[in-house]
């Protein structure tokens, strides 16, 4: 089966022997909504840069819809649309010209480009701003302009590198709706984001990159099923003087009227409320402490860190032993 994206043993070493990617493997299926997560400097942007021909790879293979990046670069480029992290359009150009020019680079003639630009600008609520210079747009509008620009040539694979960074919640939600609609229409989407709630809500599959290596690549469902404990924040009606001990629930007190409760995944919420009722604790409202994915993400990164430290310690020990022996 042809994948939307297939990366094999991809390596990138920058000048000064900085290994940004240490041989990553990744497969994204057609029609998928895929999350690519990782801390800052993990290698996500380098990987995206290579896929989009902005960064030269050191070795390895990249295939997009079966086309090889090395030998069929133009075909690969025709299939990809990129929404980069930083605003990178010519801010002195009018909005509509940015889209028409981008279409031109893909060989789309001006009349067709105008039609597509109108369609996208209307859809992303930028039509009224079409003759305005891009530097006059607000942050949210600039983000939407970059999405429109990435879609002007109707790519089959859309890569979004933190598309909602710095965007207010209302626009973020409308962008989510738009992207979901796009995905349902058949566009494969790869999303990198720091809003893990965004990845959790939108994506079907996920890969986590850490220090240039893929440490996890699985379905979102599978990853979330590994979460054993969920933490809830409870706002209490009356102040609590002392913290009761409850079997099966770990409680922590934030302040006299706020509790944090760690609930084992095998227990139901009814169990928690029954226990609270036993101690006559009345709850006004309740929310998840963090996104579930955020907890897993931190756990995975910490596990990696501990493993690396342990490897480093062993290595150091061996080196010390060698020194002693020699």
């Amino acid at each position, binding site marked *: 089966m042809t994948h939307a994206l297939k990366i094999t043993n991809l390596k990138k070493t920058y000048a000064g022997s900085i290994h940004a990617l240490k041989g990553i493997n990744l497969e994204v299926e057609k029609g998928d909504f895929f999350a690519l997560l990782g801390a800052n400097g993990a290698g996500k942007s380098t990987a995206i840069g290579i896929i*989009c021909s902005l*960064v030269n790879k050191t070795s390895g293979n990249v295939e997009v819809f079966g086309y090889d990046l090395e030998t069929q670069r133009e075909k690969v480029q025709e299939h990809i649309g990129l929404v980069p992290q930083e605003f990178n359009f010519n801010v002195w150009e009018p909005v509509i010209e940015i889209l*028409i020019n981008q279409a031109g680079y893909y060989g789309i003639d001006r009349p067709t480009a105008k039609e597509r630009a109108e369609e996208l600008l209307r859809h992303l609520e930028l039509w009224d701003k079409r003759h305005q210079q891009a530097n006059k747009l607000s942050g949210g509008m600039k983000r939407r302009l970059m999405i429109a620009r990435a879609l002007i040539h109707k790519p089959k694979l859309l890569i979004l590198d933190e598309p909602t960074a710095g965007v207010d919640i209302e626009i973020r939600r409308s962008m989510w709706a738009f992207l979901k609609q796009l995905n349902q229409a058949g566009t494969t989407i790869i999303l990198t984001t720091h809003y893990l709630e965004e990845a959790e809500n939108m994506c079907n599959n996920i890969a986590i990159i850490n220090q240039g290596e893929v440490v996890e690549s699985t379905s979102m469902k599978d990853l979330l099923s590994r979460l054993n404990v969920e933490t809830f924040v409870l706002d209490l009606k009356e102040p609590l003087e002392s913290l009761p001990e409850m079997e099966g629930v770990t409680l922590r007190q934030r302040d006299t009227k706020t509790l944090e409760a760690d609930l084992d995944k095998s227990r139901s919420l009814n169990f928690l409320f029954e226990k609270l009722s036993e101690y006559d604790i009345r709850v006004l409202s309740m929310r998840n402490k963090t996104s579930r994915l955020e907890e897993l993400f931190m756990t995975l990164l910490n596990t990696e860190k501990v493993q690396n430290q342990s490897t480093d310690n062993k290595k150091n020990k061996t080196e010390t032993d060698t020194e002693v022996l020699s």
Partner: protein
Amino acid sequence: MINKKHLTAFRTIITKEVLRFLRIWVQTLIPPAITMTLYFVIFGNLIGDAIGEMGGFKYIEYIIPGLIMMSVITNSYSNVVAAFFNAKMYGHIQEMLISPVPNHVILLGYIGGGMARGLTVGLIVTLVSLFFSDLNIKHPFITIGIVLMTSMLFSIAGFINAVYARNFDDISIIPTFVLTPLTYLGGVFYSISLLSEFWQTLSLANPVLYMVNGFRYGILGVSDINPWISFSLIILFTAALYLLAYRLVKKGVGIRS
């Protein structure tokens, strides 16, 4: 292989570049027209009458081809160096790098933009010169050939400068410390036959001399250099710089990490 899509991309880059310099016409088209008008007034009318004839022509007639060529050279160069450096600096070069635009098309697009501005300014300066002197072109094809090739050559040179430039200083160092001296010492204002043998020989190492004299031959029919040598050297320089610029883009120097 260049196909229809590539031609559309090429047209897009040129249109974008032309619209860019037309949008800022106060910075790009007016200053050279004013500077050259001053040259015509001071060197042509005021000092020129005292100088008398040069190469069998009135001094103002003699310097007009050189001044037109000087405008073409500086404007072709500065258009590409500024446009490509800005595209690099502000990241919109990525719009082309992620698209299926071949490296030759990117390069030719910017060169086309540089030539469009160089030739537009050259035409403006030519029109201004008509207020000061008549212009009878002796060899139209040589004139057009030389001006086109020179404009192309300096557009490529501007592109190479922009590829290596890392900050705004880097795009002004070459025009200030290399291009301007070469242009002023390239026979714009004088015939090298007026110089001593040593300086004549040294002047022959200045590539601008061949372009100015080639153009002057096209317009007036006089030159310090055999026009075919001028033409051949310009073609040689253009081909060499084009290959260098293409190699730089292909390797991604300054644009791909």
